[in-house]
């Protein structure tokens, strides 16, 4: 129950649903951090990727534990009326949009590569079956 000790003291006063969500999120974040570590160990991802994902999940953890931080950040970049958590949502949506776009582009490239392979095989098989026939 390390998680509980990590929480800021004033949170012990009101153990409510919000806190429950925090604990669950922290557990998930820790799990994901461990996973990033083990993936790095098995060399499934590069150090750069591991650091990036580690930072992302660490950031999520910090925001969950200290939501007030985001209010200060939001105020600093000029979002006076917005709550900090809104900023987090904006950024998250932007990141998701970007990732979806990248996925689409990559998917398209893969589709194209598959077609190239299929075409190559089709043309090659024709050659193998009767090399002299040019129809």
């Amino acid at each position, binding site marked *: 129950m390390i998680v509980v000790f990590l929480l800021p003291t004033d949170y012990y006063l009101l153990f409510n649903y919000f806190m429950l969500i925090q604990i669950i999120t922290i557990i998930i974040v820790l799990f994901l951090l461990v996973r990033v570590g083990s993936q790095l160990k098995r060399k499934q991802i590069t150090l750069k990727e591991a650091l990036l994902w580690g930072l992302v999940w660490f950031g999520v953890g910090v925001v969950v534990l200290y939501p007030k931080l985001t209010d200060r950040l939001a105020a600093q970049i000029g979002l006076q009326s917005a709550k900090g958590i809104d900023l987090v949502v904006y950024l998250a949506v932007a990141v998701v949009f970007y990732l979806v776009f990248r996925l689409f582009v990559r998917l*398209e490239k893969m589709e194209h590569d598959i077609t190239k392979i299929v075409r190559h095989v089709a043309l090659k098989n024709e050659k193998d079956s009767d090399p002299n026939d040019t129809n």
Partner: protein
Amino acid sequence: MKIIIIIPAYNEAAKIFNVVQQVKSTGYDVVVIDDGSIDATAEEASRAGAKVLRHFVNRGYGAALTTGMDWALRHNCDVAVHFDADGQHEVGDIEKLIKPIADNQSDVVLGSRFISRDVSLYVPAIRRILIKLAILFTRVFSGIKLTDAHNGLRAFSNSALAKIDCRQDGMTFASEIIDQIAEHKLRFCEIPVTIRYTEYSKAKGESNIKKVLLGARFLWGKIIK
């Protein structure tokens, strides 16, 4: 002059034998691209005397035609003609399509079902509107003015085959090929052809909504090319 008729086919076992036989009876060589069919399309085409190339996975209309055009280029064909496998085209139109290329007046010849005021031509109303929209779409995005869109009958000279580089696998190929004509500034013309809308070809065709989405799909492919 070496002429090849390219027929892309996906699960067309019921029709392909007759279509290939009809084309062959006019003296042209046929290459059928079996686009990963799960029925006997390849066997039927081969039985009718066509050269058969097989995609072992279904890759789409555009991918199949590009494979056929690659093949034609490798075999130094002077003219390559696209012909649909479902029997909606007239074999007699092939000759008309080849002529402008043989006369060296054109690099690309496109079939059009609207050029002649043929009263016997029946095109379903919704289809007619969609084609009109597609024509407008082509004009806006590729800058080429045509009287028909997505007509399956096309003919290409050897030099056109060498220049055209199509990447879109699906039905959007029909838009992309027009785009390629504009990009490489190929000489093109349109020739009146006949389309027969049979129950079979209507059932095989894509839904109208899918046809509208093709426009978006084409633009997306153009952006990330």
